[in-house]
């Protein structure tokens, strides 16, 4: 069980929470994630990357976007509420070393998990170039935090409402063309963005890592639901990853697999929203009676 200590809405659909989790805060390293469940009996298990941790307070920070039933329910919880199931830290920490120049690319909500990794690269003595992107200005998160770490920060939006009007792959390509080219890249964001980042760096032979966020059930290597094809081999994201060589990941297959339960998930989410609406009507009716 874990108590919500802090909650903030970062944009229309993006929330930040600090959760009480002293053991996880103690152990976690950049790149790792947790799994949580909103209801111990009937809840589903969803993985979320740990964006930050505070050992003193014994807390971890998660940043999530409402994309379905569980994230929606989570977003409706408030400070003081408890999350019944929280387990972690899971997955392998990012391998941090001094490589030279590292380009860190974050798309949308992917900026959150990217933050501790960029910080760790910086602490290890790398020159860190950060590119963050989103559809529009509203959806740009953690710009200030990133600016503190970055030797160079590039912000772009799809619609040009803030920063440069471009997809993140544009500046990434330019950086790859520099002389000397960067020594390493890491991209975290929507699968389609990671796929195109991989395609962008491939011709320049810049080793690129991606952090995959697949469907998961247990998160301990028991179910294989999180499997992806990496270089023709089956890998389990929860125990072999979550980070992999971007140039070897079969993104098309991964994206297809992410839609495995899409219809049912949407249906369940819809039911939930309807039940909320109904509850509201009843509440209002009761209110009227008084």
């Amino acid at each position, binding site marked *: 069980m874990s108590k919500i200590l802090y909650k903030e809405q970062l944009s229309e659909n993006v929330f930040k929470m600090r959760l009480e989790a002293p053991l996880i805060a103690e152990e976690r390293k950049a790149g790792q994630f947790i799994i949580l469940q909103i209801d111990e009996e009937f809840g589903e298990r969803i993985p979320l990357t740990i964006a930050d941790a505070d050992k003193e307070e014994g807390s971890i920070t998660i940043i999530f976007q409402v994309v379905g039933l569980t994230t929606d329910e989570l977003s409706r919880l408030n400070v003081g509420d408890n999350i019944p199931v929280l387990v972690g830290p899971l997955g392998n920490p990012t391998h941090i070393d001094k490589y030279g120049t590292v380009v860190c690319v974050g798309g949308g909500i992917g900026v959150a998990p990217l933050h501790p990794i960029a910080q760790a690269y910086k602490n290890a003595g790398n020159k860190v170039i950060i590119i963050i992107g989103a559809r529009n200005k509203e959806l740009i998160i953690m710009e200030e935090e990133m600016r503190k770490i970055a030797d160079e920060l590039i912000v772009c939006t799809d619609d040009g409402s803030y920063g440069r009007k471009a997809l993140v792959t544009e500046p990434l390509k330019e950086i790859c063309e520099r002389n000397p080219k960067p020594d390493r890249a890491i991209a975290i964001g929507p699968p389609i963005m990671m796929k195109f980042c991989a395609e962008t760096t491939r011709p320049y032979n810049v080793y690129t890592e991606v952090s995959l966020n697949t469907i998961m059930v247990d998160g301990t290597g028991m179910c294989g639901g999180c499997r992806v094809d990496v270089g023709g081999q089956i890998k389990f994201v929860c125990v072999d990853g979550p980070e992999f060589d971007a140039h070897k990941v079969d993104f098309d297959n991964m994206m*297809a697999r992410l839609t495995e339960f899409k219809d049912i998930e949407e249906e369940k989410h819809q039911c939930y929203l309807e039940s909320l609406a109904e509850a509201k009507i009843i509440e209002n009716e009761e209110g009227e009676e008084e």
Partner: protein
Amino acid sequence: MYRTPEELQQTAHNLFEEYLPKIDALKNKDRIRIPVQEMPSQDPKERVCNLEEVAIGYTEEEARIEAMRCIQCPTQTCVRDCPVHINVPVFIDHVAHGKYQEAANVIKEASLLPAICGRVCPQETQCQKDCSVGKVFKTVDKSVSIGRLERFVADWERNTGVVQLPHVKPDTGKKVAVIGSGPAGLVVAADVRREGHSVTIFEAFHKLGGVMRYGIPEFRLPNNIIDQEIDSLRKMGVEFKTNFVVGRTRKLTDLLEKDGYDAAFVGTGAGLPLFMGIDGENLVGVFSANEYLTRANLMRAFDKKHADTPIYPSKIVAVLGGGNVAMDAARMSLRLGAEKVYVVYRRTQKEMPARKEEVEHAMEEGIEFRFLQNAKRILGDEKGRVRAIECLKYELGEPDQSGRRRPIPIEGSEFTIDVDTVIVAIGNGSNPLISQTTPEIKTNKWGNIIVDENQKTSMDRVYAGGDIVLGAATVILAMGEGRKAAAAINEMLAKDIETGESKKTVDVN
């Protein structure tokens, strides 16, 4: 052919009237004449729509008549072949005489989880394999139904409501960490706690019981049976920490060096489901049996109305494999609404490792078995979803190392079966979490933890047992290893206490 519980009970009743008056004068030839008492079960047509237990269990009269079939032979192969050596003839004699509490006491001397083992043990390859009664008829099918009797006794005791808790000795001040709450871990916890040591079970999941909870379905092993075992442990003072992944949430070495545990038992079970390595295995609609069953059981996806966890809406399912896991997945998919379910197995029914009763039940339920066939590749549609499997036909060749005849593919025999879901149930590798994070523990090339004859690992004060040592095995073998490990842990701690030696501990709080 399916016979209703009422019909079976009527037959048993008639036999009972006939045999009871002469129970102590029965000759072997009389006993052998008694027909095997079938396990009463739910009507196949009804049970495929619910999750209730399929096998209902003997009535008293059925149990006593079945028990009278035992000729109390001196060879006692049943005791020899039981992995924990239950004194079978003695408990069966008690059942024949209606002395169920005495029977329960005999079983519990050797086994801690009889209600579970009576339901899931592969008796036909263990205690019932060389039963003298079966030998007379030259078929294991006619052996005394030891497993059904064990279950009867365990259920009888549970239903009386006075399951006696084992006596717990006064506190010794020693602490033992048990990692994993499957049968191996539960048994270690019970045996170690009895000696007065404090015990904490760490479990990665939010629910306890290991495979018995997330893998084996309700219709074969109801959750309330597992709950009751866990409740007993709780009453004995065992502590539980769920949502705790040892190796990740806290290192095993930290438990021992910083948190003051004097010993640890690793019972983390099998893990890493194996895939066939064929084309199309990553298509949408291909699942490991572990994933499929975990969604349905642990995450309650069977209850489509309440559960948030989705399950794939399958119409035609192919399950690849021939073990218990394959049977469970096939039968679960039927209960989840599949219209047609195939089990594709590359050998014949005779070689199937699944419990016989499960195979029979699956057949009764209308599952179609495709023997001597195997998937060669899985075919997808333009959206990357499963559309069919392409299979090869097989024939049996010479026996291999396991003694089973080796299946050989017949060249050019390819054909396809249209399906929308494929469930792969061909076995498991080993759970990598502890070995990944605790290099001190030595493993073999398959990742199974290496132990000595006392279940001790290469790491000081750390023991292991169950599937993580054996590879995917059985509940009873996991339990047997747990008992051995507990005995060794108890002995080590007794020595510590005797020599007054206490491990240096640092209080982290």
